[in-house]
């Protein structure tokens, strides 16, 4: 469904993403792991067209390299951010409607936006300003607005960051449900290994912008190179 072929992004002399290739298949939850600064978020910025890069990314067989961000969004790739990006002066409902109105080429369907508000359990807050939401609420809102664009792929960036144990459980359930009930392919960057291995299969591990290995949760957690570079310093965070 999404295929990256030898993509490289250099910032000056530093290669943040270095000759990376991978393929995400339909209906997968594709995990991306790696230490801080490994190039995970940069990779998202390449897929969504925020930066130019070398190499090629194909989506449903179509080359999307070099397309502007809003066109990539309209083709069906949506994402959320590590630090919630919200429209502060709008209400929850208005924010989600913006996703529905601009995100897909078809006619705007209020019904679908309403479903997404219910799906992300924001029903109670729908008329509130978005800056009144707590962190979990903001994250749910970002997901609702992204889903309202009717994406084929949803890319989430560290959805668990800053959440407590209960909230992590809730967020994990939500992501599973996006994949299983809405039948949307998910790509997830997550630092929290326990969550990632529970949710994702396969998992791509990168360090310094390069692939270390790709495999099932069992394979990557037993890979000596992964343990050395990644799990060694953070598997208990």
């Amino acid at each position, binding site marked *: 469904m999404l295929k990256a072929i030898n993509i490289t992004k250099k910032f000056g002399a530093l290669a943040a993403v270095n000759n990376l290739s991978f393929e995400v298949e339909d209906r997968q939850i594709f995990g991306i792991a790696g230490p801080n600064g490994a190039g995970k978020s940069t990779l998202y910025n390449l897929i969504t067209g925020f930066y130019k890069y070398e190499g090629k990314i194909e989506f449903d067989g179509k080359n999307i390299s070099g397309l*502007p961000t*809003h066109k990539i*969004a309209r083709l069906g790739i*949506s*994402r959320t951010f590590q630090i919630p990006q919200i*429209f502060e002066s*709008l209400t929850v409902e208005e924010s989600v409607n*913006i996703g529905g109105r601009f995100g897909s080429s078809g006619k705007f369907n209020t019904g679908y936006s309403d479903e997404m508000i219910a799906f992300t359990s924001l029903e109670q807050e729908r008329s509130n300003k978005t800056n009144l939401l707590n962190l979990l609420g903001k994250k749910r809102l970002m997901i609702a607005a*992204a889903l309202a*664009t009717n994406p084929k792929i949803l890319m989430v960036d560290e959805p668990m960051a800053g959440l407590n144990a209960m909230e992590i459980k809730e967020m994990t359930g939500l992501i599973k449900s996006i994949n299983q009930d809405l039948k949307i392919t998910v790509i997830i960057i997550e630092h929290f290994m326990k969550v990632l291995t529970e949710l994702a299969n396969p998992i791509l591990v990168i360090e310094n912008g390069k692939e270390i290995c790709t495999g099932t949760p069992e394979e990557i957690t037993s890979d000596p190179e992964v343990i050395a570079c990644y799990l060694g310093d953070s598997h208990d965070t």
Partner: protein
Amino acid sequence: MFIEIIEIIISGLLNGSVYALMAIGLALVYGVTKAFNFAYGSFYTMGGYFAWILLVSLGVKGGYYVVFLTAIPFLFVVGYFLEKILISPLRKRDDWQMKAMMLTLGLSLFLDIGYIAAFGPNLKSLPDIVEGTLALGPFVFMKQDIVIFILSITGLLCFAWLLNNTRVGMAVQAVAQNPVGAQIVGIPKERVFAATFAISTILVGVGGILLSQKNFVNPQASTGIMIKAWVITAFGGMGSIKGSLYAALIIGMLEAFVGYYLGMIHIEIAVLTLLLITLAFRPQGLMGRE
């Protein structure tokens, strides 16, 4: 005494309504793109010349109806394509907001000198939109002033409606608040930037048509208008449309009172004193965010 004060307040409202119409355009562009449009005042003059060409030079039938019906699409097209051709390429570079300031400053000088080259240095006068006076009890109004007031308020209401009820307006608000998030939900940022610039060109150009009836079409009017619009947006809070509305009203009133009691010559100094005091205590302006 009482009647005097009411008259001053009415005069302040009148000033304030046109200032508001013009200043929100500047606030809008800054709020959405975070770049300052120094050519803003020159589009005011453009509005004036546009009306002069139609009404005086060509003498079209239909008068100001035709002027407004044609000026709005004309100003939109001018604003949209100037943004696309001159400013939009700058966004591929670092620190583009600074470069956009430089470029619009150059554009302003170019336009102002162009007006002199094309129309000569003399002031042009526009016919009044309506003539005569209207007496309401002890108050006597110029009908022209009433029409200008009504048109400014109509313009403001149209703008508010556009911003809150249309697809374009929603996209503009989304980009102003969060350009990254807006693109992710499929909003074409580049087109929104150009549309914003075009809408602001309409606002100030229409302001030029309205005010040039009273102040003449002046090829060098842009600097004064630019300063006024800038003072209002800085006082109201850079990029805050609501702040600009209040600021325009306050400054309109201040001008009317100072002009009446202390003399016209003290207006500018009073306005700038208010600006400096405000910025010293509230650098973000009345309603701006830090």
